[in-house]
């Protein structure tokens, strides 16, 4: 049960401590807000490190110079002269502490303003994110209902444009957290709050639910796909289309399976009879990179495994097992894979 590699300490330490670049890392941000926070982190970190070193040197020095080796309780001694100096030293130290804290407060509030402040010059993209146990419903609201894009777990944003996120929760408290982009924001049932972020570098950034939300809190990821404005608009146009019509027999049969089994009780595929909003919208499932809230890659095999027995992969998830006949399953997966 314990992999032997676990105990190869020396080698592991070497590879563990330097922070590897990644798309899910507070100290390797890919967005301006994250960079502000990272800067703040290092700013406070160096101050605190200096304070820690001074304090520890102080205690060690005090201990080392005062130490006596006798075990029997010694008589009490007084150091009136030293005490006077010590009180001055303590006073100075307290004053320095106050100054440091004041600097930290000022810098922190200033950074907070920069992170929370909104650039009003540009037209923001508005995204509504609703937390569900255990996936993210994502819509791009539009006054015209038929222009509203609905998807799940994969959030596309244009680079260099502010993105306003309206948060909501359908059940319990979740927390929306893309570490490489910005700090987290709780999704509270009964509250609709808003915050914003902006991504400047194209790429895929991972995020995860950060507030304990029940059995599958661990498997509640999402991703933010930052792409150029034109790519984003193309994606949006594609998402607005109804589901692709089946092109061959197998796919058509898969759609029939979808519409005659449990699937349609929970999922929407626009352009078909399936219109329930309990689970994620599957109209363009095949365009997403991952399934099951960033748990599995969107491949034929993973999709089939997920459909047959989701409870093996995410025990407690709201999706029911579907013990389909092998050919039905194959047809269904082909159909879902065709939903570009």
């Amino acid at each position: 049960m314990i992999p032997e590699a676990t105990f190869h300490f020396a080698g592991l330490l070497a590879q563990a401590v330097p922070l590897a670049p990644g798309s899910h890392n507070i100290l390797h941000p890919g967005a301006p807000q994250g960079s502000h926070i990272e800067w703040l982190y290092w700013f406070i970190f160096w101050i605190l490190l200096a304070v820690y070193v001074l304090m520890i040197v102080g205690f060690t020095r005090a201990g080392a110079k005062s130490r006596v080796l006798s075990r029997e309780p010694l008589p009490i001694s007084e150091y009136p002269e030293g005490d006077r100096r010590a009180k001055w030293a303590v006073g100075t130290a307290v004053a320095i502490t106050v100054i440091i804290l004041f600097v930290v407060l000022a810098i922190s509030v200033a950074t907070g303003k920069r992170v929370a402040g909104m650039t009003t010059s540009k037209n923001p993209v508005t995204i509504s994110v609703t937390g569900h146990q255990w996936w993210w419903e994502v819509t791009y609201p539009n006054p015209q209902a038929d222009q509203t894009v609905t998807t799940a777990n994969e959030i596309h944003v244009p680079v260099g444009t502010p993105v306003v996120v309206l948060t909501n929760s359908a059940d319990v408290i979740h927390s929306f957290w893309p570490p490489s982009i910005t700090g987290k924001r709780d999704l509270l049932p009964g509250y609709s709050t808003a915050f914003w972020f902006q991504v400047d570098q194209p790429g895929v950034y991972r995020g995860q639910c950060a507030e304990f939300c029940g059995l599958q809190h661990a498997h509640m990821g999402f991703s933010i796909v930052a792409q150029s404005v034109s790519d984003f608009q193309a994606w949006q146009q594609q998402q607005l289309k109804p589901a692709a019509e089946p092109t061959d027999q197998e796919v058509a049969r898969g759609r029939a399976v979808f519409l005659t089994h449990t699937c349609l009780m929970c999922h929407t595929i626009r352009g078909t009879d399936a219109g329930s909003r309990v689970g994620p919208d599957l109209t363009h499932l095949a365009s997403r990179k991952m399934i099951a809230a960033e748990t599995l890659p969107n491949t034929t095999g993973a999709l089939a495994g997920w459909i047959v027995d989701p409870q093996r992969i995410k025990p407690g998830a709201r999706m029911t097992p579907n013990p389909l006949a092998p050919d039905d399953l194959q047809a269904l997966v082909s159909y879902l894979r065709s939903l570009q």
Partner: protein
Amino acid sequence: MKRLPQFVLMLIAALLLGSCKREERVLRQPPPADETLNVVQISGLNPGANSIPTPPPSNMYEESAYTVSEGQKLYEQYNCVGCHAHGGGGIGPPLMDNNWIYGSEPGNIFATIMQGRPNGMPSFRNRIPQYQVWELVAYVRSLSGLLPKYVSPSRPDEMNVKPSESSTPHQNPTGITGEPEQRK
């Protein structure tokens, strides 16, 4: 008097077993075997004793607070609310009272959901997996107090029997204030 310790031990054991069942999170349902699907009589109009499907052997769906609560969530999700409201009835008959048109046994209710009933109750066969139907059955029976109190769910958080003035309107904030939504 000599039996007392034995009795106490048995009582404790029963209590423990009971609470284990009550609390079990049944995360992986036994896959419904195809033959049980066929055993269930689906000949609509004779709800006689013979056609009552037997509930699953352990009847675990009525002993676990978790499965009953799952039934409660499914009741909402599958829009049973649409016709039966929160048990008070509407288009469909109320489920909170003791009037059972087609019988109150788990099997009766199971059959009702699976095969539908005249005057509007659709059939959910093939739509809802059997274990979830049993969960719904357990919840529906809890509505009229047929299940022990210790497994019956309390109010759900979504419960909203009347259009409540007190519920906060879900409006989107107009500006980016970082504040909870406007309240007054």
